[in-house]
């Protein structure tokens, strides 16, 4: 096999062929470190790994080829080759090791730097996390497309035709981006955009690196190239010049990650680098009826200027058979939902596995998930959701840990309210209800609102129950212990093996002051929250949230440590404490967390928040496509909603203007907006219908959840296709 570009609809067998090729290479004793497999998401990597493990016979003895996302590869290589490029890329001083920022820490530093200028964005009425997310989005898009940060304002301004105040905002975005970039360069910090920028500008054309990829990547496999940004295509173009074989695949329709920088046109240029373009026409995973429905519906959005999607009656008739009985067209949102739940119950009763059912909506709000969970629980059906990352602070377990952190650090002078403490106690102490927790909290905070004090007066315990005295006392003592500067109790301190003093220097000649917040929480978990009388040890999902928060706090703290930030390096306005003090870093973390800034608003990849096999999937339609899910039955909710058609409001960034395809200097017009929305809608419909094996249920209500009457283009298109065929 030479260089092959494979294109076709979802379900045509492209990924299967890619995996077969991987198995073939491994079976031919090709050195594993000479194979590169690029995937778009972790699930694909796992599919490749599973396929390799299932190979039988002598092929089973094999290597472990690199199976990675492009972003993972870029980050690893920037880190590995950093000494080669640090000086040219402008890092000062260049000899420091790079410190990678995740979305959370990038948002934190940007937030500190942008704080004095926040008033300048007031007119946009954006929440702070959304403002930060959009500045980072502009930086990410610049890096992925290969233009400088100094082009952001010009590109956006040239395309803008509204009121002139927006031009000032664009300039402010660019200034914020530039100051964040300068800060990163001065402290060897690399956010996502700088990793990609350094990779594309300095690493990709460094002779040593070119020799490295020439020697290493002799066989290249890349799945879903259309879901990747132009910089990934640049990398592939370079590798294709020297590799022995390659197999690239493209899903058509695809490009659903456009908001994360995916560029279908750029991907398609790779076809010219290949010896052969193979088109697979047939989709094996969707029924002819759902495919026909997709074609008929998407046609309504493809040729809007002329005959507006004339649907041949034969297609309409076939398309109509793809539609399940409509789960009620009621006046209210709640009625629509009960209709959907009823249908799901029926399907499951008739033998459908819950995981074969997906409920899709333009947005998935908490209330939708809650209602679905509660209603389906009655019949024993579980629900799982896959949504973009949620703010950590939304979770009751996180709030509980934050409340205890405040009470464990009276020097922060952060008051704790009675409802906060009551909720924290109710969440953590076994069998303690909110009413009793409120009584305890009230008495405790009257004694001190900054720390938990012993409550030895028996009257309170007689009221709430003596059995709660002991967990309260453990918590009170645990908080006091966890925050001390004393050496933390180490469970294995008496374990065998002691450090040799022969050659070793002391570990930390100048220990930093205070206990790091992550260790404070770990200590609290170890000594208190995981003990009997506390309920975390019984709720594994709660433990997972604890773990996630502790990891987040730890990576936040480690950035300060590894970048060796000192008082003089603290970004933005001085917080009044030294950043090399653990207490101050913890305090900053809590402040940022409770401002909802520590939430992955922009994440090139994100993980499902709960994974439950054998459960009905509830997901936003785009998330469903991006994760390449497939189902036997799909429920499309709120088909009247404009949300199916509209782009998310992002006044400070733009997926089309900040792309490589955009011609700078052009205005973004109503016609452009209409054209791109139509095209996205068409792709969305085809993308969904290609992933549905049996039937689609369309659900709607006259009034949306917010009480509005809507009649979006999706509902109109459906009426046109299905309505006409009904009349036929």
């Amino acid at each position, binding site marked *: 096999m030479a260089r092959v570009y494979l294109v076709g609809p979802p379900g045509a067998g492209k990924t299967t062929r890619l995996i077969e090729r991987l198995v073939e290479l491994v079976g031919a004793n090709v050195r594993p470190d000479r194979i590169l497999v690029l995937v778009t998401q972790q699930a694909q990597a796992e599919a490749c790994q599973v396929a390799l493990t299932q190979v039988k016979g002598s092929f089973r003895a094999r290597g472990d080829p690199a199976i990675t996302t492009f972003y993972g590869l870029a980050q690893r290589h920037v880190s590995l080759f950093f000494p080669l490029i640090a000086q040219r890329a402008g890092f000062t001083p260049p000899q420091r090791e790079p410190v990678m920022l995740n979305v959370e820490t990038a948002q934190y530093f940007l937030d500190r730097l942008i704080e004095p200028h926040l008033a300048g964005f007031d007119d946009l009425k954006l929440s702070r996390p959304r403002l930060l997310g959009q500045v980072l989005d502009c930086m990410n898009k610049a890096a992925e497309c290969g233009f400088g940060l100094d082009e952001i304002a010009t590109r956006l301004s040239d395309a803008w035709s509204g009121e002139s105040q927006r031009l000032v905002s664009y300039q402010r975005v660019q200034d914020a981006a530039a100051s964040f970039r300068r800060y990163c360069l001065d402290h060897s910090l690399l956010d996502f955009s700088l990793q990609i920028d350094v990779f594309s500008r300095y690493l990709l054309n460094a002779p040593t690196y070119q020799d490295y990829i020439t020697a290493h990547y002799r066989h290249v496999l890349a799945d879903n190239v259309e879901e990747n940004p132009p910089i990934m295509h640049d990398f592939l173009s370079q590798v294709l010049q020297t590799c022995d074989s390659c197999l690239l695949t493209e899903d058509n329709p695809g490009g659903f990650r456009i908001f994360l920088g995916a560029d279908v046109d750029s991907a398609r240029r790779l076809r010219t680098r290949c010896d052969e373009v193979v088109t697979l026409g047939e989709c094996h995973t969707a029924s002819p009826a759902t495919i026909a429905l997709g074609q008929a519906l998407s046609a309504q959005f493809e040729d809007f200027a002329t005959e507006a999607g004339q649907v041949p009656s034969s297609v309409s008739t076939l398309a109509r058979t793809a539609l399940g009985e409509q789960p009620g067209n009621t006046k209210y949102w709640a009625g629509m939902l009960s209709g959907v739940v009823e249908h799901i119950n029926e399907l499951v009763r008739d033998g459908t596995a819950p995981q074969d059912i997906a409920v899709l909506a333009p947005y998935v709000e908490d209330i939708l998930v809650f209602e679905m969970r509660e209603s389906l629980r009655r019949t024993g059906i579980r629900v799982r959701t896959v949504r973009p990352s949620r703010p950590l602070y939304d979770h009751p377990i996180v709030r509980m840990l934050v409340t205890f952190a405040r009470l464990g650090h009276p020097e922060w002078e952060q008051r704790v309210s009675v409802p906060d403490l009551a909720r924290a106690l109710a969440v953590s102490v076994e069998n303690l209800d909110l009413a009793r927790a409120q009584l305890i909290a009230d008495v405790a905070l009257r004694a001190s609102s900054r720390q938990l004090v012993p409550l030895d007066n028996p009257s309170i315990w007689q009221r709430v129950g003596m059995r709660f005295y002991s967990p309260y006392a453990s918590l009170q003592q645990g908080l006091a212990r966890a925050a001390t500067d004393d050496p*933390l109790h180490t469970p294995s301190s008496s374990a065998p093996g002691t450090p040799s003093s022969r050659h070793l220097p002391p570990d930390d000649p100048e220990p930093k002051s205070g206990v790091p917040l992550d260790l404070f929480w*770990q200590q609290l978990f170890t000594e208190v929250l995981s003990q009997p009388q506390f309920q975390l040890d019984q709720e594994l999902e709660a433990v997972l949230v604890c*773990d996630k928060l502790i990891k987040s706090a730890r990576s936040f703290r480690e950035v300060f440590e590894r970048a060796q930030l000192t008082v003089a390096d603290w970004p933005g306005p001085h917080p009044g404490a030294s950043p090399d003090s653990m207490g101050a870093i913890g305090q900053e973390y809590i402040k940022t967390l409770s401002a909802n800034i520590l939430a992955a608003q922009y994440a090139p990849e994100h993980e499902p928040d709960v994974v439950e096999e054998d459960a009905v999937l509830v997901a936003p339609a785009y998330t469903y496509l991006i994760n390449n899910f497939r189902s036997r039955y799909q429920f499309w909710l709120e088909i009247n909603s404009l949300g199916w058609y509209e782009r998310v409001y992002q006044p400070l960034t733009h997926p089309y203007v900040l792309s490589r395809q955009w011609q700078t200097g052009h205005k973004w017009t109503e016609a452009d907006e209409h054209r791109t929305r139509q095209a996205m809608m068409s792709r969305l419909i085809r993308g969904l219908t290609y992933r549905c094996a049996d039937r689609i249920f369309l659900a709607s209500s006259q009034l949306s959840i917010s009480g509005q009457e809507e009649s979006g283009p999706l509902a109109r298109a459906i009426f046109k296709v299905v309505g006409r065929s009904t009349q036929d």
Partner: protein
Amino acid sequence: MDASFKFSQHSLNDYVACPRRFYLHYVAKLAWPVVEPNPIGLQPLDYQRYLWRGTELHRWIERYWLGIPTPPDSAPDEEMRLWWDHFLHLEFNNLPAQRIPELGLVAPVGDHLLYARFDLLACDASTQASRAVIVDWKTLRTSNHLSAHWFARRIQTRVYLYVLATAGAPYNGGQPFAPEQCSMRYWLANYPDQPWVDIPYSTADYERDRTWLLGLLERASSGQTEEDYARGSEQRQCMRCTYQTLCNRSGGIACSTGPDAFEDEYFDVDSAAEAASIDY
């Protein structure tokens, strides 16, 4: 257990120490965010920094083999400077010429798979007397057990040499390396006076390891429920275990380990790196 599960020296160490720990960690994948226990008596923060230095050292050494210079004054602290200085004074002439850093291989053991990630594979497939040497960088802090005998008994040694002899064919012109062609070399960063420990391998060793690994992997993968993974019997294992508060016990009944179990009682800084060895 997931059919695609790949065993590694770490999961096997856990299984040998306590089947329940193996279950909680690798089957149930249970997060349990306690203060990380550590076997060398450091404070938790110092232990984290020590682990980080080990990871950095591995990256610097990988750079060395790729010809990427690490600036001399970039060591974050004295210990790292010392390790790096010891490394730069090493003599590598007696290793085979081809050097492949950070190499992962997977070998079958019956119906199961065994994974190993070598810090460095030095091999020489082009010569008549081809040989392959796995090199492992160790930042062990112990003054005991530095004998070749102790290293030879480590689970890591047994797993690595077995995997190389079974799955090394792509590095030997398509032919598997005979066990006699394989060996393992540990570099001890903290012991410049005795920097190397060499472990040879033989067909008899290979056969013995295959039988032992097969039995171990069969047992480790045969459990259907949590109850099938019994608690270990050694008190000291619980004292250094993350799940101690979950199991709600501070020790166990002292008894000897089985004759085919290998002790691996000293801390290995590679753990962090190899545990996350599948790089997505």
